[in-house]
């Protein structure tokens, strides 16, 4: 995944989460929907954050097979 894609995906997820927070505070959406958004969004956010920091177009290698 390209660094830029990961960054924008991360920002998108973060914006959606904050939007859900605001909407939930103002009472527009029920609380469970806000929590559901977070359950789906938090893992994505963590991964995209990491991928943005260290995305690399490397070749895949075989797993570790011993010392």
């Amino acid at each position, binding site marked *: 995944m390209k660094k830029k894609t990961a960054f924008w995906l991360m920002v998108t997820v973060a914006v959606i*989460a*904050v939007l859900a*927070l605001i909407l939930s505070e103002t009472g527009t959406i029920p*609380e469970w929907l*806000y*929590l559901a958004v*977070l*359950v*789906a969004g*938090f*893992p*994505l956010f*963590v*991964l995209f*954050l*990491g*991928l943005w*920091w*260290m*995305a*690399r177009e*490397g*070749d*895949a*290698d*075989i*797993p*570790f*097979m011993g010392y």
Partner: protein
Amino acid sequence: MIPYLLFATFFGLLLLGIHRKLIARIQRRPGPPIWQEILHTLKFSFKSTWIPATASEVLFVSVVLIAIGIWTAAFFVLVTGGSLLIIFAIYMLHKIVEHGFGLSSGSPYGKFGGVRSVISAASEIPLFVSVSAVAIFTGSLQISDIIAYQAETGPLLFTIPLAAIALYLVILSKVPASPFAIVESKEIVSGYKTEHFGVWRAGLETCNGLKSYVLLLTFITVFIGALPFLGILLTMLLLVVSLAFVCALCPMLSPFDSVTIQTIITGIMLIYVLYLGVFG
């Protein structure tokens, strides 16, 4: 909820760091600084990342997402006072996550770790037993009802101490370096997480931080009841200290011994719950 979620993640990681430091000090080693686990998480995010050539890519990545997702869900269920059964379910399904981590990479070490995590199912049955003991007393499995019950009659810790011990053992079998941590014992390299490096491992560490926070909070909520926020954090710290003493002083059991001991504990707990159900 967002700030609390982030706080829980970092505080859980900090607790894991304290746990590690304490074990080291008990064993008279210097040990890493207490924020080592937080640094770990950040460090792994900066490491180079790829998917192994033999892995099943979709599963390899999504199992990390699922790991964080289920514990986020558990956290919310706990905080909003949902059903204790859901937390119980998520605890059990964490096994699937471990299994998925181990099997998705194609590495034999990962596979051993994954299979061991399925074998260690014996550690879950005490959890169910303690859940049913709680259900016998409070008549409900909603966490909000359990809190209300304890506000009236005092902590369940003193009413059903054996059930509390069962839950304590369940938490113990999930902390690193515990006598029951057969999924991470040293002869299988790093167990199920052998092939999840870089960003994937950072995700796993995030999940671990959140998981420790949720498990400790469950113990406190179910057996002690509502506490002020600082009180919760302090109690968690105390629990971690006691866990660290157990982990530092007990040897790591072999898979067979671990399952045997957990099965014996389960047997004792079943008898206890039957006794509670009949005479309680």
